[in-house]
């Protein structure tokens, strides 16, 4: 047995499983997004492929057959992108100082912090968002306290802010870890040099720390933005059916609405947005480093 053949035998089972259970389904989904709904499984397999589902995202047929603009889906897309962007910025703003601080700790301190930051990632997302449901709910003490101070009644749950809090809570560790890996290897004498050359702390942060942190910032931003865009649990629990995101309307098409082709269309669009953002980030980083 040659080395190459043995390698192929070892590698192919894992690759096949992923290609068959992730790659093939994605291709099939892209095909289904071109079909009509119908049949028992929600897809009319014999229908001719067309872009009708994609047209439906923006245009709606009126009763008399004219096409009118339908902003419903566009708004949900915009809200998803905006919430994902806000979460990314919040996570970076909180993650950068934490990563800087972690890099200044002793070896044991770093290990402990690393474990503390990683643990939430491995605990159940559903359960962690449920914890916020308990904290923010109407008869909870946080809500009572806020309402005591506020001159008008405030509802903490079921709005964009609650979803943003929940999303940041869910994905914040994803910015801390890549930033920490950058700062861990950072030669802090560069900062001394900047200081000796008369740079203020703010200037040193902007001209020395941030450029070096760029790969960490890009990686962290992607790691937060992408899962946020496809978030389902957080808006379902903390948005309470009022603050919908892309994930929720995709689920609806496969649930109550039983329009699988349209659900597939929404999922393809989600993937497309994700690809655009990833490419933009990669291009931006290349331009920065070039």
């Amino acid at each position, binding site marked *: 047995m040659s080395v190459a053949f*043995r390698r*192929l035998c*070892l*590698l192919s089972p*894992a*690759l096949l*499983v*992923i*290609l068959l*259970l992730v*790659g093939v*389904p*994605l291709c*099939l*989904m892209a095909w*289904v997004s071109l079909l009509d709904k119908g049949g028992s*499984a929600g*897809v009319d397999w014999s229908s001719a492929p067309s872009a009708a589902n994609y047209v439906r995202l923006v245009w709606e047929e009126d009763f008399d057959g004219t096409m009118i603009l339908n902003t419903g889906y566009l708004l949900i897309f915009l809200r998803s992108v905006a919430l994902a962007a806000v979460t990314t910025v919040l996570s970076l703003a909180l*993650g950068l*100082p*934490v990563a*800087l*601080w972690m*890099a*200044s700790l002793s070896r044991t301190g770093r290990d402990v*912090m690393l*474990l*503390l930051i990683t*643990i*939430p990632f*491995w*605990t*159940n*997302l*559903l*359960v962690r968002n*449920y*914890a916020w449901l*308990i904290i923010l709910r109407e008869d*909870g003490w946080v809500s009572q306290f806020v309402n005591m101070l506020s001159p008008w009644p405030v509802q903490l749950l079921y709005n964009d802010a609650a979803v943003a809090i929940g999303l940041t*809570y869910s994905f*914040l*560790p994803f910015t*801390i870890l890549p930033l920490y890996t950058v*700062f861990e290897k*950072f030669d*802090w004498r560069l*900062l001394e040099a*900047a*200081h000796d050359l008369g740079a203020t*702390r703010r200037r040193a*942060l902007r001209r020395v720390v941030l450029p070096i942190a760029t790969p960490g910032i890009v990686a962290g931003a992607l790691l937060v933005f992408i899962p946020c865009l496809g978030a*389902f649990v957080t808006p*379902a629990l903390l948005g309470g059916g009022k603050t919908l995101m892309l994930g929720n309307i995709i*689920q609806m098409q*496969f649930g109550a609405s039983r329009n699988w082709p349209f659900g597939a269309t929404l*999922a393809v669009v*989600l*993937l497309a947005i*994700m690809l655009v953002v990833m490419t933009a980030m990669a291009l931006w980083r290349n331009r920065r480093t070039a």
Partner: protein
Amino acid sequence: MSPRRFPFTRETALLVLAYLYVPVAVLIVYSFNANRTATVWTHASVDWYGRILVNPSIQAAAWNSLVIAVCAATAATVLALLAALATRRAFLGRGASEAVLNMPLILPEIVVAVATLILFVSLGVKLGLGAMVAAHTAFCIPFAYLPIRARLEGISGTYEEAAHDLYANRVRTFRRVTMPLLWPGVMAGFTLAFVTSLDDFLTSFFLAGPGMTTLPVYIFSAIRAGISPEINAISAVMLVVSVLLVSLSFFLGRLRR
């Protein structure tokens, strides 16, 4: 100047730790609340833990979760171990292979979940336990692969060369030299894959089919029906199980080579 010199980094870090852990602590504290309404604190009690233990639908859901996690994590670990051994040394296509292996980490889970649902239904595969095990295996592979790969990178090839020089054949070298050194990595990978499968909600939610639940799917529908002390208790149990397993995996990953 050290990073210590930047103002407010320590304060922000402590604030972030509070942000991450206070909600979890609140949840656990409330799971010991005797009051039915789950909002008013009366006195401490473990009643709800007793209730969830004897609730047959929770038992069934927990059993399903366990079966899926054991099967999916075992399959994923075996596949990931083989793949890690294959990608140990550089070759043409290693980058591409690793990109495929890590694909489930990058793609939004809801997209993969609905795509898998479409595939299974179009092929006439029955939804339920088997469908969930298959889908979980696929997304658990990278979680098992990464720790095994990391451990393998730290093992110098000289041990295997020595075994080879002492006339051990390939199988014997693998069994007596590589595997004992690699073992903590394999266990760490299995544990992470197990936790990932146990905690998964979205994929199971779409592939469970009628009449089948896992623990997270049960919790989701229970939350939809309203906050209750039982949910607090199951959630607390799930949190503690995950934390214990991840700490175990972290410890295994740091075992001396």
